């Protein structure tokens, strides 16, 4: 039975290899793809080596815009003097322009010439070719037909004819390397990364037990991973997927930075560039950040709450598996070269227009699946945190990471249906032909903006709030004291969660939305910075009142404090509508959100990785490599994104594939220094991208030969540190009396006074008391 499975796998691999090896046809501007392969079909189909074609008159390398007289001719074959018809030709030139000088040849278009009726009884013809004005690689393809002249014979006179072809290439004065197709680059890198991932996974399996490395053991191991509903396995799956797409998104960013390294670059056309920044945004937010948050949450929430698993384990598995398939849908566009080019914000009406690439439909479809995934996640975590806390753990005794996941999930599952509905509207518009965003029928593009940003703004808080949680945990443990002002931290999180819904208009200040709403949003956006500021001061106070131990996770938390604060401050320029009108769509926005998203979210993730890796895997990460990672990444990151503020103020526009610099103060051009800064940013970008491989290497090295981790390497005191590293499949905690079981929170007085306030008292009256359950009353 297993041999059948092996056979099946081999068949699939062979099929894939065969599909990849299929030759593809080349189509020409004139649309005559057959000519290149099989000669001119009007004269039979026999290529022959006895016919020799040649092009005379071409130089070794052309001079710009010079005219050359070419003689195309052939020898051999059945053509003879005295035949009614002797031969024909078709010449194609990839660059430059062709022209004819007599009636024996005709011009199909500036790249193709062929013979005429009047010219089909000779064996050589002259045509003129004008070289291009720039450096190009030029290909000439000449097809010739040697005709035996039997006009009355079979096939309308085509039987017995033979054809042949010759290809000549030349370049201009300066040799030109063939331009890389950015999609080929991206596709290759993605395939390489995925292959490396697969190899790494196989290697991890091998290392578990080298003697058992065969298909018999691999299939059940793989099936277990594909079907597991255990929160730990699902957490790992999310995490690995998220890291992989973080890398893919980074590759896209690097390609964008290559394009922007010099002004006027043409590595990416605007059309290609649109697809790259769209996919970079979508990948990073939905396929990298959200899964990694879910990875941390899946692993740590049940552990921190003292629960055995999440409330709905199979639904949890469903949440995960929707993601890789959604990614497949989103990336079909990339591999076809027609990816979504609408921006990750997908503004209407372009997103439903026929002008947008048809990858946009799949982009919408994939995101619909992600909406479903997020909704299920939200339900699961909310339920778990509401109902499965350990005995004695009230709401105000939950760890701050758990609170952050709770608030994030509340925001997520209440706001994402708006996005889902919008996406379904877009999908239906593009597929079935509904008229939600059809301008000519009265559709309103602002509807999409409202629906998208109603979700979009809470979404960006969804991605940052878990990092807040991680930082709270890390700073508390590193400072060896609990976080200062626990209650205000919780209220700040809750405040962020609620206010997030009424500020979304600040993404639409320049869209022509309602003026009253604009004004209201300006005020609420200024307001929303307050809870975050409270949190930052609380963290600072925690460190001040504690005694900081410097580990890698501590360094990343400190780095977070710096970069997130900077990002938050740069964000405070946007609530003012007047400032926003100037800064909207400029690199200032790019700088701001990368400071909060990378400097905030991703740095929080890094901190969490270094903090919780020992717990999850049972191995320690190397501190030396960690510090090296931090130093290189932190420095290169700031070098990468800080100058973008300056570029934004100068007026460099985002989403434009290139920019121009000038010494004059012309509108639309940047000062000369902008070119230098862009190159600096690109170089820093590459440094940042590669510095993160130190982390990957650290993770692999730790898995192979890392030192074993104790239960509690850092001296943390939340529940996850009471179990083993890694925790057993059914989590058991080491209790005070030495036994293993599920914990209770005995000393609930740690954080706040236990007297219920008026809110708690009122709430108590809503609850179902223990002696009044249905069971008891029946």
């Amino acid at each position, binding site marked *: 039975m297993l041999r059948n499975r092996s056979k099946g796998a081999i068949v699939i691999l062979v099929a894939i290899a065969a599909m990849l090896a299929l030759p593809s046809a080349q189509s020409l501007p004139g649309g005559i793809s057959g000519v290149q392969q099989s000669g001119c079909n009007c004269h039979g189909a026999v290529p022959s080596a006895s016919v020799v074609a040649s092009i005379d008159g071409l130089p070794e390398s052309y001079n710009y815009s010079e005219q050359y007289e070419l003689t195309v001719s052939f020898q051999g074959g059945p053509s003879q003097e005295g035949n009614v018809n002797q031969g024909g030709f078709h010449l194609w030139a990839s660059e430059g322009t062709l022209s004819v000088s007599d009636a024996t040849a005709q011009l199909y278009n500036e790249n193709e010439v062929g013979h005429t009726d009047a010219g089909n009884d000779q064996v050589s013809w002259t045509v003129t070719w004008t070289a291009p004005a720039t450096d190009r690689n030029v290909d000439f393809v000449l097809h010739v037909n040697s005709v035996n002249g039997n006009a009355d014979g079979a096939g309308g006179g085509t039987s017995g004819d033979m054809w042949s072809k010759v290809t000549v290439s030349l370049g201009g004065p300066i040799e030109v390397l063939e331009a890389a197709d950015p999609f080929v680059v991206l596709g290759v890198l993605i395939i390489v990364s995925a292959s490396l991932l697969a190899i790494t996974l196989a290697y991890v399996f091998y290392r578990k037990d080298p003697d058992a490395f065969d298909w018999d053991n691999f299939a059940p191991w793989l099936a277990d991973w594909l079907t597991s509903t255990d929160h730990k396995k699902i957490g790992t799956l999310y995490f690995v997927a998220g890291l992989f797409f973080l890398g893919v998104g980074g590759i896209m960013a690097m390609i964008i930075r290559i394009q922007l390294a010099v002004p006027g670059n043409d590595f990416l056309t605007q059309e290609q560039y649109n697809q790259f920044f769209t996919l970079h945004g979508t990948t990073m937010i939905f396929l990298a950040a959200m899964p990694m948050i879910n990875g941390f949450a899946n692993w740590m929430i049940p552990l921190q709450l003292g629960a055995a698993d999440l409330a709905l384990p199979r639904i949890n598995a469903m949440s995960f598996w929707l993601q890789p398939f959604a990614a497949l849908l989103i990336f079909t566009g990339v591999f076809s070269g027609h990816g979504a080019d609408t921006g990750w914000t997908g503004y209407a009406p372009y997103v439903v227009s026929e002008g947008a690439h048809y990858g946009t439909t799949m982009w919408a479809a994939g995101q619909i699946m992600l909406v479903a995934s997020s909704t299920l996640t939200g339900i699961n975590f909310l339920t778990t945190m509401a109902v499965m806390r350990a005995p004695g753990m009230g709401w105000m005794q939950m760890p701050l990471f758990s609170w952050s996941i709770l608030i994030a999930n509340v925001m997520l599952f209440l706001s994402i249906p708006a996005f889902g509905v919008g996406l379904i*509207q877009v999908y239906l518009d593009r597929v079935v032909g509904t008229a939600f965003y059809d301008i000519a029928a009265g559709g309103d593009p602002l*509807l999409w903006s409202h629906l998208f940003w109603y979700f979009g703004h809470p979404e960006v808080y969804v991605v940052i709030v878990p990092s807040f949680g991680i930082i709270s945990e890390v700073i508390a443990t590193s400072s060896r004291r609990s976080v200062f002002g626990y209650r205000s931290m919780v209220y700040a999180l809750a405040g962020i969660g609620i206010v997030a819904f009424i500020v979304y208009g600040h993404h639409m200040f320049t869209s022509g939305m309602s003026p009253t709403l604009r004004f209201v949003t300006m005020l609420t956006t200024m307001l929303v910075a307050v809870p975050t500021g409270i949190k930052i001061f609380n963290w600072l106070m925690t460190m001040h009142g504690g005694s900081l131990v410097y580990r890698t996770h501590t360094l990343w938390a400190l780095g977070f404090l710096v970069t997130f604060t900077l990002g938050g401050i740069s964000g405070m320029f946007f609530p003012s509508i007047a400032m926003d009108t100037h800064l909207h769509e400029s690199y200032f926005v790019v700088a701001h959100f990368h400071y909060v998203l990378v400097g905030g979210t991703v740095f929080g993730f890094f901190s969490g990785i270094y903090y919780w890796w020992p717990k999850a895997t049972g191995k320690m990460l190397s501190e030396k490599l960690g510090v090296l990672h931090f130093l290189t990444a932190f420095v290169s990151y700031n070098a990468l994104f800080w100058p973008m503020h300056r570029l934004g103020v100068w007026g460099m526009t985002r989403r434009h594939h290139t920019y121009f610099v000038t010494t004059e103060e012309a509108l639309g051009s940047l000062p000369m220094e902008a070119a230098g800064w862009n190159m600096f940013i690109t170089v820093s970008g590459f440094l940042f991208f590669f510095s993160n491989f130190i982390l990957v290497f650290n993770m692999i090295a730790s898995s192979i030969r890392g030192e074993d981790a104790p239960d509690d390497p850092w001296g943390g005191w939340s529940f996850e540190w009471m179990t083993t590293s890694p925790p057993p499949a059914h989590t058991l905690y080491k209790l005070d009396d030495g036994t293993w079981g599920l914990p209770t929170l005995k000393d609930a007085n740690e954080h706040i006074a236990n007297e219920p306030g008026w809110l708690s008292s009122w709430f108590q009256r809503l*609850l179902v008391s223990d002696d009044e359950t249905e069971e008891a009353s029946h």
Partner: protein
Amino acid sequence: MSGDHHPSAWGPHDWRHGAPHNSWSPFILSLGVAIFLFTLAGAFKFGEFQGWGKVPLVFVGLGVIGFSLLVWWRQDISFGVNGEVFEPKSAGTPFQNIDIRKVALWMFLMSEMMVFTSLFSTYMRYRFGIPNCQTVFESGEWVEGTSVICFEPAGHLIASSWFHIAPGAINTFALIISSFTIVQALRYAKKKDIDEDVRRRKVTRYLGATWFLAILFLTLKMIEWFLGFPLPEFLHEFNHGDSSIKSLYAEGYLINADSYQHHAYDTHYIEAHPNDYSIPEDSALYAMMQAGTHPGGHMMADIQVSATTFYVTTGTHGAHVFGGIIGLSYMTLKAAKGGYTPDNAVSIEYFGLYWHFVDLVWVLVFPFFYLY
């Protein structure tokens, strides 16, 4: 391979505490959804059908989804049958002592509220933002032969006569009755002092009745949308002599209707049938026609947005009914096998909550989309 320690991820679940919960259905369901969305986009592009050759692939996607549901059900059908039920209750405030799955369902309903709010907001935005076709007609700012954009609410067609409202009204009654039958099913499933066989029959019948009413709902909806229905002879005179009630589709109320015409907006028809329609004397159109500055005629309207919001909102509700039918199919089957006992009757309650929510949405959809 599947023994005591490795219960199959395909087959009946091992309900013992501590047994692994592996399942193939999440993986396969996600695959099916991806295939379905991908192939559906291949079968239609911007409303143009791409040929029947693409349709089988869509069914492949639906088939994969169906298969994953079968796996899911196969794993679950033994739940509670042998009396061993693990229905955990919440431990902490504020939901203490409430079934965890009930809490989870209410969370789900919260997100569903947001889904329908988004759809209603879209409808509101367009309904109040685009001028009503009746208003446009009466303002006289139209020319015969040129389409004007205006909002034609479906209620204009549906609420025009008792016969037209009939399917919608019957549907409302059907949903209310089905809400009641599902409660009855729960009641009998929970009843402790009745015979096993009696319970099995009652629960199956009530669940089956709910299932049937849901099917009736969708059937009537299809009649309303696409098929129309004929009238018996004696009712023809009440229907302006017409022998059938036309469906919305037949009336031209379509998502691609950019040149929609209705006899209520035809001045010639109005003149010929003064008992049915009239142009208000205080309207601009009346004044213009009296003054001779407007030639009258049959107004053409672009009602794509109106039709879109109607079909998609009521269609989303219909899709939720369809989801309920899928759930009910499983539950009726399980009930027929005697699978519902007082121990696990709460499962019916959870479905009931979803079903009542669907009814709630209909309570809002019916007046505001069909009657107004």
